[in-house]
């Protein structure tokens, strides 16, 4: 089929790459200034493992074409909207334009985070009787595993009430249904709500386990033991139950923020708002532990960060705890040495040149002369370091483990002081 994808961020590129790979002829239409930008300079592409190669490959094969809206209209069977949450008016004018150009058999797939009821709003400007339809498909985007999430989903929800649109959409997504465990058709409004509900639930779980860990710290119990006990209960399960120094990421944060707004305006309810604001506080947890360890005086100290991306497997630093930690440390006149296997370039872009901030390509050189090591992102290469080497390089053998990946008792044998999250 001929598919046109509209958008410029990760979800747009992933959709374009995967749809092209399945044999569709795909055009991706982004902002004017992006069409000629080299792919490796687009951070959404660069930060996601495997995506750059995939896109380059599909472009080379002629399956994927980059375009912008000044290009003359080219025919497409399906129009795929993957715009940013703040591009609602752009979506509206685009849909109006398409409706004029394609009076019959117009299929639009909406994957944007515009809120509950928005797909219906777009649909209301179209003529369903002439098979002009908008289908909402919530994204399965998990940064770091985005390609897999698109091409081998376990769950798919299709939000539409048009039989024609459903048939067309099914044929488009057929290649991705091998691993499917659950496919459900519902109204677009319900599908939008479901996406919010899932994201909100995950955020609340993370917020809850983080709060439990902080309480465990105060009560002198080990959160690992507690969550083992909790996870054994089938009503709870073990997923999304790891405490840490805060969650981040662009997509996840955007959905939660929007859902939180919905709760607040419709229900005057601050449940999700609290989760968000507590998460911001959680991002500074390692700083607070360090602050207390050094009796409220960090002036002139050197601190190492292992990991800067918001989670392993991506170079993205969107809403990452590392950003807040680095800012807090710099404000106390601390020399900050950061290692990350992927995200250093993004950190350099974000902070610019600051003499107190050193970006290190080797985790051990980042730890040299350090007064504390903060483990911020649990990249696999950090799980089992050379402890003797590490202890000898550091000024003070202090480890603040923001992801609970180290065995505290073992570390203590090597002479480290180790503080985790909730243990």
């Amino acid at each position, binding site marked *: 089929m001929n598919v046109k994808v509209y958008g410029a961020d990760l979800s747009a590129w992933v959709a374009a790459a995967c749809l092209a790979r399945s044999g569709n002829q795909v055009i991706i239409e982004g902002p004017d200034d992006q069409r000629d930008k080299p792919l490796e300079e687009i951070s959404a592409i660069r930060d996601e493992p495997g995506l750059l190669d995939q896109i380059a490959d599909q472009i080379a094969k002629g399956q994927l074409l980059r375009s912008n809206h000044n290009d003359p209209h080219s025919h497409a069977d399906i129009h795929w909207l993957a715009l940013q949450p703040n591009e609602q008016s752009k979506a509206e004018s685009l849909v109006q334009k398409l409706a004029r150009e394609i009076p019959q058999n117009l299929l639009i797939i909406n994957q944007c985070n515009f809120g509950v009821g928005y797909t219906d709003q777009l649909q209301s400007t179209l003529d369903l009787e002439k098979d002009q339809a908008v289908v909402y498909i919530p994204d399965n985007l998990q940064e770091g595993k985005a390609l897999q999430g698109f091409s081998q989903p376990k769950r798919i929800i299709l939000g539409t009430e048009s039989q024609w649109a459903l048939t067309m959409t099914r044929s488009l997504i057929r290649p991705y249904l091998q691993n499917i465990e659950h496919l459900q058709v519902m109204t677009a409004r319900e599908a939008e709500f479901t996406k919010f509900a899932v994201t909100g639930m995950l955020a609340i779980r993370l917020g809850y386990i983080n709060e439990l860990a902080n309480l465990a710290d105060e009560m002198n119990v080990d959160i690992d033991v507690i969550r083992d006990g909790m996870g054994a209960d089938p009503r709870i399960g073990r997923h999304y139950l790891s405490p840490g120094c805060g969650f981040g990421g662009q997509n996840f944060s955007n959905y939660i923020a929007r859902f939180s707004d919905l709760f607040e305006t419709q229900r005057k309810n601050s449940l999700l708002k609290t989760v968000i604001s507590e998460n911001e506080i959680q991002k500074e947890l390692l700083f*607070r*532990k360090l602050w*207390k360890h050094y009796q*409220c005086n960090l002036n002139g100290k050197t601190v190492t960060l292992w990991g800067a991306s918001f989670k392993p497997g991506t170079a993205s630093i969107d809403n990452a705890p590392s950003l807040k930690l680095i800012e*807090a440390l710099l*404000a106390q006149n601390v020399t900050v040495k950061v290692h990350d296997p992927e995200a250093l370039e993004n950190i350099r872009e974000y902070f610019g040149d600051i003499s107190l901030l050193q970006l290190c390509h080797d985790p051990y050189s980042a730890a040299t002369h350090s007064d504390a090591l903060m483990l911020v992102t649990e990249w696999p290469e950090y799980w089992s370091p050379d402890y003797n080497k590490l202890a000898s390089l550091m000024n003070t053998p202090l480890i603040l483990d923001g992801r609970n990946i180290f065995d505290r008792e073992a570390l203590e044998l090597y002479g480290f002081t180790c503080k985790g999250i909730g243990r």
Partner: protein
Amino acid sequence: MAVNNSPAWKALQFHATDLERQHLKDLFLNNPERFDQFSFSAAHCLLDLSKQRMSAQTLDLLINLSDQQGLRQKIQAMFDGEIVNPSEDRPALHTALRQPAGETLNVGDQDINAEVHRSLAEMEKLVQQIHNQQWRGFDGSPIKSVVNIGVGGSDLGPLMTCRALGQFAPEHIRSLDIHFVSSMDGSQLARLLNKLNPASTLFIVSSKSFTTIDTLANANTALEWLIHASDVPQEIITQHHFIGVTASPAKAVEWGIPEQNQLRFWDWTGGRYSMWSVIGMAIALQIGYDNFRRFLNGAWEMDRHFLAAEARSNLPVLLALTEIWNINFLNIHAHAILPYDGRLEYLPAYLEQLEMESNGKSVNLDGEYVAHSTCPILWGEVGPNAQHAFYQLLHQGTEAVMCDFIAPALRYEDQSEELQKQHQLALANCLAQSRLLALGDSVLDDAGDAPAHKRYRGNQPSTTIMLDRLTPESFGALIALYEHKVYVQSVIWEINPFDQWGVELGKKVATSLMSSFDNEIPEDTDSSTEGLIRYVQQQRRESKQ
């Protein structure tokens, strides 16, 4: 020769016997140009004196009086840093505090302008650190609440301005709460401490001398609260939870505030003239440093006007002389401050201190008792609320009262129509009241038929000060207008407006009584004081039983 024996004064006395007989309604009737003739504009302020019981000749005679008193030179002397506070041997340089950077003002061998801006730059640094959420409490949390501990000038000015200009706070600093604590009995502080989180609370202890007992008593309670909540040594608490704003750094260190947490001002900044200095830290925290700067700039605009404009169009001079006329020649000894804008709710309290502490004096610069009245009794309230409280007395009581009506012409421009209507309602009331006070029930056609208890005799003079809108600039200018008015009056009355010896003795007597609740009452105590102490002692004994 004392001023009240001077020719200019005598001429005014004589003139008053004529004016006294004229009702304001007749002055308006006989002169349709009154508003044009008696209203003046400068630095965002419109000053309408047409509802004052004056004629063109009155103004001429008042300006003669100011010339006779050497006002122009006295104004220049204040700006130049000459000793205008002889009892404490100091200049009064609050105008230097609002001078933009790069101007020059040297007093002796001191570069005052450079010092002022060095001090403000230090404050700006702390303010930014707090706004960036990078000032940390004992557990590493960023500061969320700031409590300004101070009294008098270290409290009233910042409190008033925070309330007046709070809406100008940029979005990113709005989560910061600013509180004010002044009362020595601890009642404000005790209520506040119940609600605050110690780890994210910062105290600004503002005291010029750092010996003010009211302030230190509150600061000690705050310190104890923090130590108790944190289990952290006192040095760490004072380092991370206290900023001292003072002209006495050694005393602040003695109390426990390290030098790097101190902001300095100078003995030439009078307490009630100090919010333009680092005493205004709470203001900068509330509205942002840039807006604080705008506030200073507004005052600076009024300063330049005061310095340059001739008496005949000089707002502070005209306002001062008009009140001199009321006080000394029309024998009016009460002055009501009536803002028609809820944001100015603390303006009356602020002006009570500014005016009554400055000019509430009866000894002149030569050390002699004056034979004329000085500062009247000043009080006030947000106008629309006062209408339901003391306006009855203004309209039908036996006392002559002069009133200041203060309001912005525009408000709520980018907000709902209903709110704009509310402002219009307030303005309509403002104008109605000043009109009725001036003209009485002559505004009605058939007033004469009413029984006496329903009549309004009018002839109560008032000033209306209208701002274009309430902004940091216009508010700064408004306050500077009052400051300078107070100075002009002191020049006419030949008194020192910058000292306050009348507040000293009470502190000493209190100190001497402090121990008598627990011990013997000294023999020379008067029977009333002794009786009251005995009552307290008895209540204490009974409560212990």
